[in-house]
């Protein structure tokens, strides 16, 4: 089997070389401590008295996670290897470098590796006298049944959940409140995706899984993990309908409710296809009597070079709408 074509130098150096490029591109937004090259900190945002919001996870999902570090959103991100949780030390370094003295909230996707590493980081911070709490994102409705929400994984809904928690912290709310709002945002955010092709890791340059031509994987994760089932490739409207049927059934929003929408590329799927999906998403939401308050369309939480897309709907209330509308200024995401 031939190797996939990538613009890299050395697969093992890909993450560090990417980070060097990110810092070179965004010196106004991001910096790294000299002794902590895998901790990316916001230039503006962290300040005394403010809860420190630290996100993080494996690389390969850009602009998640580092793209959402900035004023009004996350204070710092801990960066792992491709699709692998960072070890505890970068998370500790990130929290301490951005520490505002009002406590730390770790907010990241629910994966066994991330939980072990961030829990070890929280223990290390407690030893330094820094209070650290954790909220796990679990927005992927395809990854476990509804009554096992706590087992679900966190995927593109991270963008809205991070946004809500980041706004709460930027409003100088106390740790209890920032944690509550993060949990509330997570509980009201629902995502499902489909993959049309495999991604390949820079270290292996081989497809991570085998997806025959003419087929798609439904309920795909953002690391190339298999989804809930495999089926023939269908039209954009049919895919949007299947996803929206599942999300609307779970969300249980009354007519007249407001939502935020994210139609996300997993990496290789172009904007044209995302907007085609979004046309159907908008129709379905209108038919359900729901008002679209905000729509994001683009590559917000990717899976390297995977083709495919996910749809995220956040069921807003007044509080979450305020958080979503709050201004932010990050390297890869700005608002207001």
């Amino acid at each position, binding site marked *: 089997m031939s190797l996939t074509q990538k613009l890299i130098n050395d697969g093992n150096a890909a993450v560090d070389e990417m980070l060097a490029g990110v810092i070179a591109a965004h010196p106004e937004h991001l910096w790294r401590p000299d002794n902590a090259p895998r901790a990316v900190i916001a230039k503006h945002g962290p300040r005394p008295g403010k809860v420190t919001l630290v996100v993080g996870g494996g690389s390969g999902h850009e602009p998640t996670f580092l793209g959402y570090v900035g004023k009004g959103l996350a204070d710092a991100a801990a960066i792992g290897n491709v699709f692998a949780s960072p070890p505890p030390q970068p998370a500790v370094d990130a929290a301490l470098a951005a520490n505002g003295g009002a406590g730390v909230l770790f907010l990241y996707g629910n994966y066994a590796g991330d939980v072990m590493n961030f829990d070890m980081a929280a223990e290390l911070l407690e030893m330094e006298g820094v209070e650290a709490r954790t909220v796990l994102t679990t927005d992927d409705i395809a990854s476990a049944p509804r009554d096992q929400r706590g087992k679900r994984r966190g995927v593109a809904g991270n963008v809205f959940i991070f946004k809500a928690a980041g706004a709460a912290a930027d409003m100088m709310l106390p740790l209890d409140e920032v944690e509550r709002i993060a949990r509330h945002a997570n509980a009201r955010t629902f995502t499902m995706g489909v993959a049309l092709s495999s991604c390949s890791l820079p270290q292996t340059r081989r497809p991570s899984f085998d997806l025959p031509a003419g087929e798609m994987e439904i309920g795909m994760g953002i690391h190339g*993990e*298999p989804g809930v089932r495999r089926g023939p490739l269908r039209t954009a409207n049919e895919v949007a309908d299947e996803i929206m049927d599942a999300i609307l059934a779970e969300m249980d929003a009354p007519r007249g409710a407001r939502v935020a929408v994210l139609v996300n590329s997993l990496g290789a799927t172009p904007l044209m296809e995302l907007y085609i999906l979004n046309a159907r998403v908008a129709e379905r939401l209108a038919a359900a009597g729901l008002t679209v308050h905000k729509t994001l369309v683009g590559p917000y939480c990717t899976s390297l070079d995977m083709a495919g897309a996910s749809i995220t709907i956040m069921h807003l209330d007044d509080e979450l709408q305020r958080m979503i509308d709050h201004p932010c200024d990050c390297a890869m995401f700005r608002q207001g």
Partner: protein
Amino acid sequence: MEFTAEDAKGLFAAFAARMQAERDALCALDGVIGDADHGIAMEQGMNAAAEAAKTVEAGTLQDVFNAAAKAFLNAVGASSGPLYATAFLRAGKAAGARPSMTAGELRTVIVAMRDGIVQRGKAEPGQKTMLDAWAPAAQAAEAGADAEAIAAAARDGAEATRQMVATLGRAARLGDRSLGHPDPGAVSASMLVEEICRAMRG
């Protein structure tokens, strides 16, 4: 037969060489039920562990294991990082702050590694994880089995994960779709047990 701190360094070098050789095969196994990176994580982690172990000067067995644990964790993260780092720390404690032990005492190292993995990962046997190779190996070691039998127990344990449905870790979200495929973490674990058993035989 003695197992010295130098031998411990050699054991980590053997781990690294084995993971390097098996990297792509482990990634391919992981691609079926996971995210295809297990071989990469194990190779990177063991390379870092072997390098760190090598630089320990005039240290005890525990010093070598501790250095390897820290290096493995910082190189990898992921789930294998905390699990193997904790396993190596426990192994170091079992081996002790002494320059050498008998090779037969490597049985206590296998048992301690199992204990560390349970402590950190909170898995139980039968959940289709690396524990399904470590647990039978540790049981055999506790019973005083010879090196061949301990390695065979680990291999059989890894093979038995084929018939398990994952209920912990990333593959748990697959449900029945994980059936029929061995757990890559259990397969790499059985390889590490084989290397320890090779050291036990001298």
